[in-house]
């Protein structure tokens, strides 16, 4: 690693100030599980790094009664994996957290880091998309909210300005007749990056699908929703045949590339398989 200056703010305000004063190429540091490898490999050479670990607010989880969930950006994947409130109503998010890296990585890796790093393969992004989360962002001009679907602008690019940071994610409660699931494919069971990831969330009303969300990872520059598939499901009674059709439609939302982790063909194949499986599980959970 090359040399840099390290700033250690103790509050959100201090952090916003530090960020405003710091050189433009400064980097925020949360768990460091994306940033440190990038620094070590020389992909980034910032003059200044600002550590978020001293800001308690960023590490809080609040699950207000019926209010939905507020997850601080510095909440770790391990916390999401184990947290009761998250597991109760936002299971796909817990499932995605449980898949990140290894336990040694999950104890460091944060939700905010996963989202702000904006890798197409980020596991915690599809559940957030499927749960209609909103990103709460702060900066010198105050706070703003951005729907998660609009947060990503490209590979490793987001709507965040250089002087802004992600404070938390606000996730509406999907309700008791809703169920979700996240699955990904990796050649190894742990310690691997998604070849494809799919999150599905189904909300039922009167035996029909009131709302469907399907979000895909690692098949496009940004995490994407499979809207055609969602529309095919909404308003319908969800049968195995319909799930199959939705899975076929989901493939159309994918614009995969071939790389060292998998070919475009295999990725399309996986979108179909994993969409079918996550929808089947989501349906069972919604009904339960």
């Amino acid at each position: 690693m090359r040399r840099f200056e390290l700033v250690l703010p103790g509050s959100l305000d201090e952090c916003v100030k530090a960020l405003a004063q710091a050189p433009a190429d400064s980097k925020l540091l949360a768990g460091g599980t994306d940033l440190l490898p990038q620094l070590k490999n020389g992909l980034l050479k910032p003059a200044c790094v600002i550590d978020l670990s001293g800001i308690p607010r960023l590490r809080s989880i609040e699950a207000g009664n019926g209010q939905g969930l507020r997850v601080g950006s510095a909440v770790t994947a391990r916390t999401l994996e184990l947290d009761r409130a998250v597991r109760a109503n936002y299971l796909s998010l817990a499932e995605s957290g449980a898949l990140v890296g290894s336990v040694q990585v999950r104890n460091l890796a944060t939700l905010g880091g996963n989202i702000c790093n904006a890798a197409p393969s980020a596991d915690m992004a599809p559940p957030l998309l499927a749960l209609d989360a909103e990103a709460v962002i702060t900066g010198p001009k105050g706070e703003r909210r951005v729907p998660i679907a609009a947060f990503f602008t490209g590979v490793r690019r987001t709507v965040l300005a250089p002087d802004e940071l992600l404070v938390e994610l606000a996730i509406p409660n999907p309700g008791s007749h809703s169920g979700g699931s996240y699955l990904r494919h990796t050649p190894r069971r742990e310690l691997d990056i998604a070849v494809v990831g799919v999150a599905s969330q189904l909300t039922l009303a009167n035996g029909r699908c009131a709302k469907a969300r399907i979000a895909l990872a690692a098949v496009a520059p940004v995490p994407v929703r499979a809207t055609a598939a969602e529309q095919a499901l909404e308003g319908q009674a969800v049968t195995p045949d319909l799930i199959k059709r939705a899975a076929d439609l989901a493939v159309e939302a994918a614009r995969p590339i071939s790389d060292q982790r998998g070919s475009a063909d295999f990725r399309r194949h996986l979108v179909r398989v994993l969409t079918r499986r996550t929808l089947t599980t989501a349906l069972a959970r919604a009904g339960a």
Partner: protein
Amino acid sequence: MSTVMKTTRDVKGIGLSIPRPDGPDKVTGQVQYVADLNPRGLLHAKLLRSPHAHAKIVRIDVSRARALPGVRAVLTAADIPVLKKKAPTRAHAVLAIDRVVFAGQPVAAVAADEPAIAEEALDLIDVQYEVLPVAADPLESMKPGAPPVAELGTEADTSEAQAHGSVAGVTTEVKSSKAVNISQQARLQRGDVAKAFAESDVVIENTYRVPMVHQGYLEPHAVLAQWDTAGNLTLWASTQGSFNTRSEVADVLELPENRIKVIPMECGGGFGGKIRALCEPITAVLARATNRPVRYVMTRREELEAGMPAPQVIIKLKTGVKRDGTLMALEAEAILESGAFSGAVLAVAGVFLASLYLWPHFDVKGFEVLTHKPSIAAYRAPVAPQTIFAIDSQMEQIARKLGVDPVEFRLRHLQREGDKMANNQPWLSNGGVEVLTRLAEHPFWKKRAEWKASAKDGKLRGTGLSLGGWLGGLQPTGATVRLNPDGTLQVLTGQVDIAGTNIALAQIAATAYGVDIDKVKITTGDTDVAPLTGLSAGSKTTYTVGVAVMQAAQNARNQTLEIAAKELEASVHDLEIDGDRVVVRGVPDKGVTLASIGKKGNLYMSKVEPVLGASHPAFSVQAPAFCGQLARIEVDPDTGEVTLHNFVVVQDVGKAINPAQIEGQMQGGAVQSLGMALTEALMYDDKARLTNPSLLDYRKLTAADLPNIETIIVEKPAPHGPFGARGVGEPPIVPAPAAIANAIEDATGVRLTHLPLSPERIALAIASAS
């Protein structure tokens, strides 16, 4: 040589699962590896590596790097006069002179007060490259007109083959073809292949491909170098052979060998990748330039991009058999991609392809091909897993096609002791038949139909097995055994203990001398003090050093008994060692303690010679060792995911000197074999740049991917091994790729011939078959 020692009681030695004495130090983090050394005044080295696989170096400007405070030396090839353009090995190519031939090749070196400063210095070195066309694929590279890799006139390097001492009698031709990148060729022929194919009923043709894989040792290459004022160099190294490291460094730097002391530190894994010198020469040069101790530790990325992996192996294989199962003809072309420098063990491929089963007619051609990739080295049983993958997959397919039992089919044709190998050498005593027979008796094999039928929830189940082995390595060695003044024994070798061999050697010494193991201490000495010895490689440490230790211990025992005979006024033949005394057989009161004999050898004015047993044997007889593996798997046909439910390893070890250590070797080797089968590959783009330079994307198997590995030891004594022991290190890495491919076919009906057998390959093959 498998002498049975005469003692009045069994000593605590051979055959016991004694834990390694370094266990407590290893579980508490006390054992020292090179990177743990932190002498005063330490400097940190970093290397600037080429981003291009093939380029001319037009200009290097290091002035800005030299000016950075904290930087103590910045070197390029121009600063090292001993470097030559026609570098015969990677070790000699210390820094690129005017051309780089693989991405990751060192171009400049820095030593600085802190690693961070050294890295910044690398950023400040300005190199101007002229990018040249790249030979990235061996099949393209072997054609005439491909971009040349080696400098004209560079000799092929066959020392790796010699180091493993594995195959005699294969003539390897060096560079005769017009294709500039074919660095070695070999051919083995017998009979009339064309006629035999014409008479065959079933002809099967396949191309097998095994990508470059990395040995994956967990400790990256590391070295600490320091010079004294008299001009002697000390290297603390992570090496599989300190004498080899010394020779190579001496050769590269043109130093007399006795000016270099190599201290072998605990080696955090090698598996063949730490045989050859790699970063030792440049670290030594930096230490001399700065007059300070310099430590160089490769990053994992550097290991993957610029280590010395196993070659990519492409085998085109055609076999012909009669309907009644008679083997007729085998034709093969084996292409070994060696990267930028020659060094593949070409002969192994040829011999294994045509020697394991008895083919009356065969024609095997081998080519070593250079490409613009990091040059290769040995990896545990070099080229055997790749070759067995091809031949065993082929045997399985033939058996299926003929509708005969695959084990019986293999057993029918498996060569036995005395049969002629493809190189016309006779097969030596081995346990191939015993191993395969034992494997086939396993309930998992017998119940393979039930397993297949038990599949549910859309999954598929299958069972597969495979048989492979290793011919065994040889290398001269030496050992001494001394009797201490308190009656304990001191064993000294120069052999680096990379596999728990020291405890086995101590057990051999104990049994051969006739005392309990807790009386024996074994030390691996540095190159200044230890007897010259070979590499810890080729499954030959126990087999060869074991003999040296055994003979040295017998020698020390004889000296001890002679001294006692004088003292007791008895004949040597009437004496025996019982506990800590030498006694007259049948007269237990008449004796003398080992301590008193030891003491007299070290008393002022004593006339008793100190007991010093020594042996320095050379060897001529190998001990082939076979391993069979069986896999019970489940396949998810939609995702291609393979779940390993059970995995069994059966291995002939000759004599299990320390069964627990052997099990550890069998399990570790099996998992490396499974990694090669399922997930591992160094992947390159069309510019020969590595696309997966991390352990996240270079996927070694984790505990979550595996079942417990069941081990079954078979003992068919090796006539010349110590107490009948054979080498155990290499064989277990050989069979899994074929065993898994066979199991996948059993489960899914799909035959895969390219490794790794990844989910993608499996799922897409199933999808396209249905």
